[in-house]
């Protein structure tokens, strides 16, 4: 398969992106970005960002310079259920934010958008993270929010890492990872730099940046390229890459030795992880494509390993030049079309001496050209195994859908039976008077068991990244939450658990409801916390226990939301039954408040 086909991007466009990225670097490093001068009729627009070359443009502080993502600008970059924000390199993200504020970028993008163009953001070296952030910004703003039909592409060349594991997870979950194509030459030091704490490489990094920056007087200066500072920096970078890769591999392999935990508590490892598609160029025209971020991480270390101590000087020099050779390497790769797509990591030959059929032999040659030892291949296999296991877990979980639906039907039946008697199922359940109440309780517990297992898996990252964005599960989760959470609340207040544990919402609300609520709110782009209709009864119980005057604001807020929930059918109308706990409480509120309330009409029309 041709290189362009396997990543879904025209090869012409990749070349154009590469040329423009290098042009931005070499010819106009002072500009914030440059556009490919295309004719009006062209269907594409390419925008490239040059890198910046001060150490502080890479690391804002010790040790790794990461910060929490600006969630207002990038609302998707978090884990949904766990509600954990992604980490991003602070220097890169603040550079992008400044660029967005102070330049015409947004206006020019919107212009290209109005011409219905396919946009490509490109960047070389530290221009790469800017291109990535621009792409995510575009995806958030125009694709996710405004449904622009042509998602942008991001193509980078020798880009440093910019985000952590949640960053990568979120892009895969949104199904955006495929729009990011990162080219990495075999020894290029830049994509590996971020594995090291600043303190250990500061001087060396300074020299590397002097060597690779076109503005610098030492641009491609041989004496720098061969200096001992750069050599020791390379070794430090490799050692840190090795530590991060081994640590990750231990987890991939399901390491049970707790020494891992003990040792990890002594050291601080880089949080950065790759995202998107990586294309490794072997340097002799061959290329390896892969998407599994765990495997990419391993490859970033293993492909740059030395084959013997004697080649240190050669490799170190090459590790700098590899950062500047993308145009040639890309040209070679596109001409040779010797492409290996590593999408079946499980079948990877462990031995470098496979002698079976042609296809395996070709695979082996390319892997050997990247210098992958048996050890490296074991790590890649482990990454494949973990991916397979996650998919298998998802299959197992999916097979529970029918029992969940059946359980929900029965609880719905219970609700209907109660309605016939003009009793809300919340109140009936709280009394636990007859056998139907009991049966509903058993169903509630059965459903809780199934959902808790799913939540446990999410917490341990044992499901595919996309799970929390799956429409059918979001719907099922919402149905489950709206129907069953009232029963959990009833059970809580029936057993007077609030007397020793406090309000339901504060400490007692099970994760199965917190998670499913966040799923819906994220999918529907709602404000966090706005879909709390399933906690209606917990709010009522808390308000009921306290004097009105203290609670006035909260009462008004609940009334306002209740009106909307009833209107949207998110809250079932049985809360309005004359004898319901809610109505009884409301009718005891001060008459003045009642008459001014926004639900006065609703309540009086019962």
């Amino acid at each position, binding site marked *: 398969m041709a290189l362009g086909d396997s990543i879904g991007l025209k090869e012409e466009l990749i070349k154009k992106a590469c040329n423009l990225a290098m042009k931005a670097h070499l010819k106009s490093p002072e500009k914030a970005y440059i556009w490919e001068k295309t004719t009006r009729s062209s269907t594409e627009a390419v925008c490239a960002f040059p890198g910046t070359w001060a150490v502080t443009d890479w690391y804002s502080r010790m040790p790794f310079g990461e910060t929490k993502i600006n969630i207002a600008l990038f609302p998707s970059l978090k884990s949904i259920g766990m509600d954990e924000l992604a980490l991003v390199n602070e220097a890169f993200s603040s550079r992008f934010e400044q660029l967005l504020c102070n330049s015409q970028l947004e206006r020019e993008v919107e212009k290209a958008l109005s011409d219905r163009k396919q946009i490509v953001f490109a960047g070389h070296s530290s221009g790469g993270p800017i291109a990535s952030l621009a792409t995510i910004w575009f995806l958030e703003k125009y694709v996710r929010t405004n449904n622009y039909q042509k998602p942008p592409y991001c193509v980078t060349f020798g880009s440093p890492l910019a985000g952590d594991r949640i960053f990568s997870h979120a892009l895969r979950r949104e199904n955006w990872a495929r729009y990011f194509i990162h080219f990495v030459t075999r020894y290029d030091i830049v994509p590996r730099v971020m594995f090291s704490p600043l303190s250990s490489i500061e001087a060396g990094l300074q020299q590397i940046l002097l060597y690779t920056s076109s503005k610098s007087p030492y641009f491609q200066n041989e004496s720098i390229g061969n200096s001992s500072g750069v050599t020791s920096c390379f070794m430090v970078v490799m050692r840190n890459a*090795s530590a991060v890769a081994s640590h990750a591999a231990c987890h991939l*392999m*399901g*390491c049970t030795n707790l020494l891992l935990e003990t040792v990890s508590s002594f050291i601080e490892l880089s949080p950065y992880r790759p995202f998107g598609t990586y294309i490794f160029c072997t340097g002799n025209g061959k290329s390896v494509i892969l998407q599994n971020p765990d495997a990419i991480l391993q490859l970033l270390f293993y492909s740059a390993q030395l084959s013997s101590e004697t080649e240190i000087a050669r490799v170190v020099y090459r590790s700098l030049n590899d950062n500047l050779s993308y145009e040639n390497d890309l040209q070679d790769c596109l001409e040779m079309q010797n492409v290996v797509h590593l999408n079946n990591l499980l079948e990877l030959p462990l031995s*470098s001496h496979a002698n*079976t059929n042609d296809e395996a032999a070709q695979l082996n040659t390319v892997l050997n050209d990247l210098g992958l030892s048996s050890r490296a291949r074991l790590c890649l296999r482990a990454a494949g195994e973990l991916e397979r296991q996650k998919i298998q877990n998802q299959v197992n979980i999916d097979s529970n859908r029918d029992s969940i639906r059946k359980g929900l039907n029965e609880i719905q039946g219970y609700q209907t039976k109660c309605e016939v008697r003009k009793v809300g199922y919340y109140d009936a359940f709280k009394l636990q008077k007859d056998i139907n109440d009991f049966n509903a309780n058993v169903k509630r517990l059965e459903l*809780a068991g199934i959902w808790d297992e799913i939540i446990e898996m999410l917490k341990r990252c044992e499901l595919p990244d996309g799970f929390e964005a799956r429409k059918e599960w979001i719907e099922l989760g919402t149905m489950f939450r709206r129907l069953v959470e009232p029963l959990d609340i009833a059970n809580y207040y029936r057993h007077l658990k609030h007397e020793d544990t406090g309000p339901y919402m504060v400490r007692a609300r099970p994760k199965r409801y917190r998670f499913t609520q966040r799923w819906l709110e994220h999918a529907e782009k709602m404000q966090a916390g706005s879909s709390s209709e399933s906690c209606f009864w917990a709010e009522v119980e808390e308000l009921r226990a306290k004097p009105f005057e203290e609670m006035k604001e909260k009462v008004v807020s609940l009334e306002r939301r209740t009106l909307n929930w009833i209107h949207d059918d998110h809250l079932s109308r049985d809360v309005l039954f004359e004898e319901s706990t809610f109505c009884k409480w409301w009718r005891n509120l001060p008459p003045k408040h009642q008459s001014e309330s926004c639900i006065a009409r609703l309540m009086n029309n019962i």
Partner: protein
Amino acid sequence: MSQSCKFSSGLELANLVVNSELLHRSWDAISDLEKRSRTHVPDLPLSVEYKDSEHPGVGTIVAFACPPSSVNVQQLERVGTDLVSADEIAGFFSMFDFVRTKVNPSFSVHKAAASLFSSHMHLLSLLKEKHGNSRPLIITGQSMGGSIASLFTLWLLGDIPTKATKRPLCVTFGSPLLGDRNFQNAISERPTWNSCFLHVVSPQDPIPKTFVSSYGYLSNSSISQTGYMPVGTFLFCSERDGDSACFEEPRSVVQLMLAMSSELEEEQRQKRNFQNVDYGLILERLKRYNPVRKEYSPLHQSNINPVEAETMIQLEAIGVKRLQGNQGNRMTTSLIANVASWTEDYLTQRRNIFDPTKKLNDIKIDMAYLEWYKKVSVEQGGYYDSYKLWRWKSRDEIKSRHEIMKRKRILTRYWRGIVDEAEQMPQKEGLAFRTRGLYAGTNYRRMVEPLDIAEYYGEGKKDYLTQGRPKHYRLLEQWLNEDKQPGTGNRNSRSKACSLTEDSCFWAHVEEATICCNVLKDGQSSLKDRETSRKRLVEFEQYAMDLINTYSVSVEVFLEQSSFMQWWNGYSELIDLIGGFLCQSPLRDFMKNKRYRNYA
């Protein structure tokens, strides 16, 4: 997550450890200390010296050395490899008493290390006081210094709660093994303890191997011939290749040491010259060669499983395969097969560790059934009496009773298992475990124990509390009492009656009180029996009143047909009939005036 395909990850773990530089910093601290103690006269008995220092980025490092230590092998020849068992060194073993477990009540350790440790108690106590709470903390030493470091670490572990995330790390270089199989078992029962020991061993170092091979060489026996078993993780490292691999599974560690020693003996016969292994040099090489790819003889089988492939690479990495040479090829093959299969077993075992949270949801369903039963039996005099006096009635009732008995059985089996497991665990681990399940366990005890009591007295037996109470109830109650924070006292703030009577043995007390009444009613009873019964009845009154005052009994106690009410009826008649009771008491007052009607 059940992984069908396993990996041992010993290479990756070793790589991480080497890159962490923790070994290098530890070694630096040891070297500094040994430089200082060079001047010692070699004929003096061994002593213990230490050096503690702060290292930015690593934390506190405490290094131990046992001078005179110029040649470690000679030192070892002097002190010997004998084991000493529990009771022989009194002071020492009372300190390490916490290591014992129910399964491993006694253990033996290296005699020389133990006596050295106990003869420096004063020094070590001061050090413990100073650094016991320092974190991060590395404790390190070479050879016998490593043994002291290990014992010192273990001593600290005794005081560290299991939930603590920051634990000290003990790094030894070429140290003797420390104890026997029981010792190893006791430590590996606590995986977090086991994780604190990292032993760096060069295949060239004769010392650790002396402890597995002094009575013979390579055999297929999977245990050490001298009775020693390794504890913690072993990082074997090869000086030549600058490579390393970690092993945790004890049998593999022993086998590898045996394999190394058979080679070494050959080498040493020729040289007859013992030199200390220079771990500093090895660590330098490990660091330098780290970014260099290691590819040894290629793997030939194409369908080899990952653990086997990893094992092969690991043996090459630590130089064992090379050491064995050509004639050792068959031996190597069986060594690889053994290590791979032990590792696989070990991984399976470690991954299947019982996870009680998963079943907890199922257990809640069983509890819901009992709760419902309790509710519906209010009409039959409460669930205690209806369970006790159950008589064959309709089909449905038989069915529902079977259902309840089944649920009760499941619950009891589950909790008995949990309690057994928690009890077997050494004190501190058990405690953490107990707290987690305690809430649900208490609920279970209060719900189900009354039914057991009902069965017991239903069969006409007596003295449940002393004769019949199952152990798991006793322990659950005991743990709850231990768990109560001192100072918070009893929760007297309750404003409503609880739904489950707090004292799960309440009904046993009622039954005993009823029996006492019968004794008093019976004209044949001896004077002594009558006196005891009278006393017990007064005590019971006080006990019941206390519970009522704190709303600690459930409302159904006062149902008309309940055993408690029947006791009361009998008792109040008795008081009128025979004398000897005080004329008033709070409970009698409470009952006579039917104040229980307002109890809720």
